[in-house]
């Protein structure tokens, strides 16, 4: 009769242990409760649950009951111990009869003075994942065969909980490793892109830093348009590499200190298509980079090159790079032309908005300038790129405000407007 009661009580604990392991408690809490359930199921005075570290060959305590503060929290296993425990599987080992193993010799005193009776290696899928240390029972009787079976059953549950936790930790570790690798690759990619931009700019002594600036302006426009930082980064890369095709254009054409002739112009105008061919085979994290190179000289009104695309045929990224490219062309000195005063640049952008440039992008760019000049943003992006004196020209803030008021778009989408006079040359 008592045997039946013990069985019912132990099965109740086993059922509760199953629930504990599948619920959403923290791992530490699950293990602590598991040790309570095991102790309470059989009336065990003291004990511990440990997790095995196969790297350090140590059993590290996860939960301890009644073993005192001086019980070792980390116990080392030899290779011989590991072999024997694996061969033993998930079965209780009577500590008093196992002193032939190094593990029990080394920790003999610790085990004896706490009256530990059973050691249970938690072996799951042929791996030691932990161990149970079980002390004397409150009855003072030795563990019966059926009680050892109960210990095995509960130990299996605890072993599975530890294995799950180990797997989760491994997944988290690998995810972190992947994140770091990804960050490193991204950093390498950006460094490479910047090196390319510098190489492109080296070829043109008059437009030093042009690609880098176009990258930065493109990013500013994208940010002002509310793009996510990843997408804005893509716009920057597209800007950095937009002129990569110029690497194949003769240096004397690029550096000509005069307006180039038609033949030279035709040669120069091949650079978008060549850039596309160069960039296409590269697996970019931002898919539109080759398209930006190919179409950054297209215009909304269809008068651009190489394909004469109109408005919505033009990839959006190319519209951004086109504006950034023109803005840089207007705001930097060229061999045949000094840079335009800031107020004239605003007028030109306004005038060509809808024919050459997407109006909402022009608004975004001008708004970015205005926010910097009025102190709405602390970043000195434009001042750093174009110089303080240039950016703080008299009346520029009013000019920007008036222009932005006039430009208030009726629709956020770009549209094709009538061809405006005074188109802006882009080099």
């Amino acid at each position, binding site marked *: 009769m008592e045997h039946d*009661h013990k069985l019912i*009580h132990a099965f*109740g*604990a086993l059922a*509760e242990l199953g629930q504990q392991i599948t619920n959403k408690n923290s791992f530490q809490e699950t293990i602590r409760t598991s040790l309570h359930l095991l102790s309470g199921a059989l*009336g065990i005075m003291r004990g511990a649950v440990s997790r095995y570290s196969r790297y350090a060959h140590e059993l590290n305590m996860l939960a301890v009951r009644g073993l005192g503060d001086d019980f070792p929290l980390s116990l080392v296993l030899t290779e011989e111990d590991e072999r024997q425990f694996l061969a033993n599987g998930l079965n209780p080992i009577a500590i008093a009869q196992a002193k032939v193993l190094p593990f029990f010799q080394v920790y003999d005193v610790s085990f004896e003075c706490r009256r530990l009776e059973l050691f249970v290696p938690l072996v799951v899928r042929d791996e030691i994942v932990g161990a149970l240390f079980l002390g004397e029972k409150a*009855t*003072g*009787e030795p563990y019966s065969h059926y009680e050892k079976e109960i210990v095995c059953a509960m130990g299996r549950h605890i072993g599975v909980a530890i294995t799950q936790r180990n797997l989760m930790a491994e997944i988290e570790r690998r995810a972190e490793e992947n994140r770091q690798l990804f960050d490193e690759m991204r950093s390498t990619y950006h460094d490479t892109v910047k090196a390319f931009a510098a190489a492109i700019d080296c070829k043109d002594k008059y437009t030093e830093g042009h690609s880098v600036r176009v990258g930065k302006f493109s990013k500013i426009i994208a940010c002002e348009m509310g793009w996510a930082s990843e997408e804005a980064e893509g716009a920057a890369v597209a800007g950095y590499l937009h002129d990569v095709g110029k690497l194949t254009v003769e240096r004397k054409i690029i550096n000509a200190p005069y307006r180039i002739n038609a033949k030279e112009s035709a040669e120069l105008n091949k650079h978008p298509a060549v850039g596309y061919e160069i960039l296409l085979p590269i697996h970019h994290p931002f898919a539109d980079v080759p398209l930006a190179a190919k179409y950054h000289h297209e215009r909304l009104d269809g008068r651009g090159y190489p394909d004469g695309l109109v408005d919505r045929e033009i990839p959006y990224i190319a519209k951004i790079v086109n504006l950034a490219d023109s803005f840089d062309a207007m705001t930097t000195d060229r061999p045949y032309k000094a840079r335009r005063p800031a107020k004239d640049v605003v007028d030109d952008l306004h005038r060509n908005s809808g024919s050459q440039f997407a109006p909402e992008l022009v608004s975004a760019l001008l708004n970015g300038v205005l926010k910097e000049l009025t102190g709405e943003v602390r970043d000195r992006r434009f001042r750093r790129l174009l110089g303080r004196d240039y950016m703080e020209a008299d009346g520029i803030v009013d000019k920007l405000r008036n222009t932005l008021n006039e430009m208030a778009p009726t629709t956020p989408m770009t549209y094709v407007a009538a061809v405006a006079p005074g188109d802006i040359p882009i080099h």
Partner: protein
Amino acid sequence: MEIGIAASIDPSGERSVIFAGDYLNKLSGESIEHECRRSLAVGCKEIIVNFSRTEIVNSIGISILLGLIDTAANNGATVVFSDMNENTIELFDMLGLTKHVTIA
């Protein structure tokens, strides 16, 4: 959640009485454990756990009581279990708790 634990230390400071709730599980067991430690810290030499309201004790409750017995012994105090119903006595007997406490 109402767990029905009550504790009092007599004026001499020698004896503490802890009333266990109707269901002795993890939550109520931890409260009893807390009260026991508090009593031992002020020098109580006798911890009386009164089970007059207790209907059920689960495995975690048993484990916590075993811990309480161990802690009391380490502090030179004795533990008394009082007013247990038949089922509780039977359970404690079966698991050997009654060997370590005085029954009242």
